[in-house]
């Protein structure tokens, strides 16, 4: 009998073990965004505060985080103080108030502070749909030209910011600087 054939089951086992072990740390509920590298979709929606009409052009010029939120979303409440903190540090954050009641959104912003430079009112979820949003909170990172560079599904906290978003954001800020 050939010797090598005896190690085949062991090799198969090890391979399977590695694959399954890696599988333990996958997050299948965090879908990769199909929008990475694509321009932020065009839209024409009212603002949350005031009576402005916002469009894609309003987002251009500076790299920014675009945060999808709603008052119906408990995780958004968890996330909100950290967004306030980031905004205070000078990070540009825009908000998409996704499938929400505008009065509730206004109350929320008055109560918990408003970290958003622009508040987009997406009551029907049309912009969310064009962005491939499937829940809240989701946070997109766009560059100065309005191209989507990254998406984070779920709460942005200090760890997520430090490990995922901050390096990319800083890179884009440096890139945009003449």
């Amino acid at each position, binding site marked *: 009998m050939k010797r090598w054939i005896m190690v085949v089951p062991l090799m198969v086992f090890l391979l399977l073990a590695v694959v399954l072990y890696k599988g333990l740390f996958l997050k299948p509920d965090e879908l990769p*965004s199909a929008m990475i590298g694509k321009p932020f979709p065009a839209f024409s929606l009212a603002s949350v505060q005031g009576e402005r009409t916002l469009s894609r052009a309003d987002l251009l010029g500076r790299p920014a985080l675009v945060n999808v939120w709603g008052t119906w979303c408990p995780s958004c409440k968890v996330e909100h103080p950290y967004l306030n903190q980031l905004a205070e540090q000078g990070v540009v954050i825009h908000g998409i108030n996704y499938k929400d009641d505008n009065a509730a959104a206004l109350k929320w912003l008055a109560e918990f502070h408003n970290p958003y430079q622009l508040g987009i009112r997406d009551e029907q979820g049309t912009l969310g749909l064009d962005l491939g*949003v499937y829940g809240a909170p989701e946070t997109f990172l766009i560059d100065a030209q309005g191209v989507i560079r990254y998406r984070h599904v779920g709460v942005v906290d200090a760890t997520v910011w430090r490990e995922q978003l901050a390096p990319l954001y800083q890179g884009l800020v440096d890139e945009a600087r003449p």
Partner: protein
Amino acid sequence: MKRWLAALVLGLGIGNLAQAAIDTYQFADEAERERYRELTKELRCPKCQNQDIADSNAPIAADLRREIFRMLGEGKSNQQIIDFMVDRYGDFVRYKPALNGRTWLLWFGPGVLLAGGFVVLAVIVRRRRGQAVGDDDRLSVEERERLAKLLDREQNHD
């Protein structure tokens, strides 16, 4: 009689409740309804990942159903509707993913494994057959002498 009637009414009520979760759309014709059914079965809910969007009660699934209905009304083809979804949610939303560089393993992997199994089987069968022909069942002279000795010994023991 009254009790039966009450049960009937209650039963109908429950039926209506169950139906309330399903949105009601008016289709132009039977073909369009069929296409709607087909599409909502083939597209997967991004939120509740093991359900198609026809089955799911997630708000996002309802939105996607509404979009499909809207696009059917606009006369879009099935392919256009699927492309619309894939552009936004990625290949993930298709239960029948398109054949491309990233999905060929998914499509052909099982076939390749099956073929591999047959190859291994064929090799083993052929090798066994070869051995059967090559190995003489009859004992050599030496072996026969050894056997005779062993048998002798057995008999002497008795």
